[in-house]
């Protein structure tokens, strides 16, 4: 009975509860607390969209998509021959520049770089297939932009309307992509607002098309 025996490890023996179990529990609690706090403080995945999320991809790509619409809108505002085209051009430029500001701020809030080495549309499941000559849906080619910049007279109105309708349709396709994937309240709010606004503007542009001299 008294033969010395090598002691073996025991897990959760009730005798050990008072000291080792409590120590272990405390250690576990502290660990949980540290991990939880650091995740929150460092903004690891979970609370805000991550670097490769659909939300971040949308914010980056849509900002670039919008910037071209701003360029088109500024030309229409500057050189459109009808007051309808000048006002809608200015409206689109100001609206989309404002939306770029919101999307840039998201990326700042999420602690993400405003740039990424990811391919355009990489955040959408069928994104690569939607590219046209490497451009996001609806984007004008450099040649088309040059044609608009160099146009004068009613040609400005005609080119602007045609290019902006195409641009908006592509933009709505991208908005649908993020609406399908995101649960972020702010992202959904802006995306829905973009979709409704651009659908309305397409109707306005189609109406304006009929009144070009």
């Amino acid at each position, binding site marked *: 009975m008294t033969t010395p*025996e090598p002691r073996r490890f025991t897990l959760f023996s009730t005798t050990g509860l008072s000291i*080792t179990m409590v120590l272990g529990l405390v250690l576990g609690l502290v660990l949980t607390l540290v991990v939880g706090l650091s995740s929150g403080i460092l903004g690891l995945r979970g609370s805000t969209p991550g670097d490769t999320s659909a939300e971040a991809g949308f914010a980056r790509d849509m900002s670039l998509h919008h*910037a071209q619409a701003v360029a088109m809108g500024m030309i229409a505002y500057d050189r459109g021959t009808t007051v309808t085209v000048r006002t809608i051009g200015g409206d689109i430029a100001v609206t989309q520049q404002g939306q770029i500001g919101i999307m840039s701020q998201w990326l700042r809030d999420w602690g993400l770089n405003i740039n990424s080495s990811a391919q355009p549309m990489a955040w959408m499941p069928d994104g690569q297939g939607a590219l046209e000559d490497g451009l996001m849906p609806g984007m004008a080619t450099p040649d088309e932009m040059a044609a608009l910049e160099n146009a004068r007279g009613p040609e400005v109105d005609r080119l602007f309307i045609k290019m902006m309708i195409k641009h908006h349709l592509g933009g709505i396709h991208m908005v649908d992509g993020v609406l399908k994937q995101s649960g972020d309240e702010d992202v959904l709010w802006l995306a829905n607002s973009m979709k409704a606004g651009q659908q309305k503007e397409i109707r306005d542009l189609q109406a304006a098309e009929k009144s070009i001299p």
Partner: protein
Amino acid sequence: MSISTPSEPKNPSVVKVSGKPAAKPGAKPGTKTGTKTGTKAQVPTKGKGGGPRKPVTPVKVGGGRNWGPIALFTIVGVIAVGIIGYAAWPSFKPGGTAYSWQDRAAAIDGIVNFRDNGTKLVAEHDWAPQKYEQNPPIGGKHSPVWQQCMGNIYDAPIPNEHAVHSLEHGAAWLAYRSDLPASEVETLKSKINGKQFTMMSPVEGLDSKVSMQAWGYQLKVNDVNDGRIATFIEALAKNASLEPEAGCTTGNTATGTTPLTEQQAQQRFGGQG
């Protein structure tokens, strides 16, 4: 659960109800399986009854520390830290996305940060041609008109006074020595074409094959395939802007070595043209 010694058959455990040492280990039948309980040498725990315990050597006063839970929690902890570390590494590695753009820029080998080295860079507008300290310039007085920087490929030199204004708006400007072979220029074009907040143009007599500029930053490289070109763009385009809300659209698209005069700009941007 517990592990009993192989040399000793399992005995019914003893449930202790007092602080008294278990005088006869294994004597009373219990309901749980377990190891044998303590020995004479074992100091009893106070209060709640200790569980089954097997005999230990008399020298082990105090019953020894139960390393089981400690080992378990340590292992769980190490695994947890490992998982978190693995997930966070892409962001937190040097130059990763969790760093500020300034840190990412500073991590680029060979980059010169003029903002930090005491160089005075004013940002006022001036229609007059300027003389710049650096070639190509990285800041200073500039034309009210900026050079369009929507990934434009300029095949001839552009006026510094417009280019500097683009830098103020956040452009990363790729300048290449004007005598580079066409194949190398093509390689550079693929890094810029259509990429907003960038532009490229040849510069006469450049002291390196390629020179990257952002406001207050410069990086000279001698290989068109150098990965630092893309790293520079990713770290500094838009981020290095003095006016984060400003854009690269519109602006001057003409090439030349002297800036547009006020009269020329008046004609070019004079309203309903």
